[in-house]
């Protein structure tokens, strides 16, 4: 059953690529001189043509004693028009209990439909609205890593660079913040198997990032080694708080704080972060997440890197390094 599911998913992904390689696509997140990298725990505030392949997460669950969890996920994002894009992603989860019992399989297929509300180049401000849908019964429900119900999450994203601060601010101009807030609405209110209510959850988070590329190209060229000039040190915070239909469940906020760094190249980026649980209900010990992220607009500038409809209409402005 599991193998049939994985083959079907691989076939669906293959079908997705066929028309794309014959057409054209995207740009990643540039707003004025600011580049917002794809972040690992919080989504960046732009529609884009890009692919995360893969994102690998290792952590210990909040169980007592804790289980070890590995997640390997893939996400593909594609602009349909200049300001509207879709994303498709899925995750393979492997959970090993202390006694050796293993749960593994695919989580539900996740899609996101996003619209770019605004990009203000002068103030390095980006606003994005989206609807994230986890499609019920598309993962390994029998293995216990997916649910038979779907979850709808209207989400708002933002990004703001501080390059518009006065010149006296100096290096502070290389900082930027991003954030997102969403409201998770399951399509079922009660899980008859587990015998618990399914809560509605507020999912929110943010990032604080310092761009070495921005520092070099817009503020001061310190003639540092090239590798250093491609780094964006970052701290991400991702939290979830049950807010409704939570009868009998723990109402505590869970999540992680992720300090790390992203190396940004011309065609791809590589990110690595520690995952520090905010409390005992969020996990046990420090975990790790790493990601290879591909910029399809630079890899395939005349095909996959363009919107399917209308082509690029705005001038992308990238940091230079």
């Amino acid at each position, binding site marked *: 059953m599991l193998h049939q599911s*994985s*083959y079907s998913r*691989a076939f669906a*992904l293959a079908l997705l690529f066929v028309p794309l*390689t014959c057409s054209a696509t995207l740009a990643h997140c540039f707003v004025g*001189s600011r580049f917002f990298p794809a972040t690992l725990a919080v989504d960046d505030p732009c529609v884009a043509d890009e*692919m995360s*392949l*893969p994102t690998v997460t290792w952590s210990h669950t909040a169980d007592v004693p804790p289980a070890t969890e590995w997640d*390997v996920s*893939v996400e593909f994002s594609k602009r349909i028009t200049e300001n509207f894009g879709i994303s498709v992603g899925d995750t393979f989860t492997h959970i090993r209990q202390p006694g050796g019992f293993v749960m593994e399989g695919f989580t539900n297929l996740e899609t996101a439909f996003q619209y770019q509300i605004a990009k203000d180049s002068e103030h390095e401000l980006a606003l994005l609205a989206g609807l994230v849908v986890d499609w019920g019964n598309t993962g390994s429900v029998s293995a216990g890593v997916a649910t038979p119900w779907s979850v709808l999450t209207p989400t708002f994203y933002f990004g703001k660079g501080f390059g518009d601060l006065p*010149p006296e601010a100096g290096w502070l101009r290389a900082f930027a913040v991003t954030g997102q807030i969403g409201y998770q609405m399951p399509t079922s209110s009660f899980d008859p198997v587990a015998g618990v209510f399914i809560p509605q959850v507020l999912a929110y988070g943010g990032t604080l990032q310092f761009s070495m590329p921005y520092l*070099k*190209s*817009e*503020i*001061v*060229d310190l*003639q540092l080694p090239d590798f250093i000039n491609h780094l964006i040190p970052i701290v991400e915070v991702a939290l979830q708080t049950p807010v409704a239909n939570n009868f009998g469940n723990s109402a505590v906020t869970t999540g992680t704080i992720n300090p790390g760094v992203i190396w940004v190249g*011309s*065609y791809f980026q590589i990110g690595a972060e520690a995952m520090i649980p905010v409390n005992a209900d969020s996990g046990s010990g420090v975990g790790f997440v790493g990601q290879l992220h*591909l*910029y399809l607009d*630079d*890899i*395939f*500038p*005349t095909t996959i890197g363009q919107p399917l409809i209308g082509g690029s209409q705005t*001038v*992308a*402005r*990238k*940091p*230079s*390094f």
Partner: protein
Amino acid sequence: MAKFLGVVSLLTALLAASAAQAHAFLDHASPLVGSTVATAPPELTLTFTQNLESAFSTVTVTGPNGARVDTGKAQVSGNTMRVGLKAAGPGTYRVRWHVLSVDTHTTQGSFTFRVGGGR
């Protein structure tokens, strides 16, 4: 796992087969971004990471009093752009560039450098 490796292999092959060129980034400038030089330079040089389309690549430089001090149309050769500068005394000079790389990606940026001990 075999499926996953297959997808990675396919993608790697596609990357290798594509004659892709990325956006033109400013690799370095002379005078350096954010630097202070003793005397006004006679020329500004910008070197990018990609070759440029000269017809759609421009640079302007303003002096301490806000007036343009570049001598006009920049000369583009490969990945390098040069423009002459008129002497405008000590102070802060602002550079604004806008380029089109040969793969049609447009990029732009701005920075300052200082001459002498002026503002």
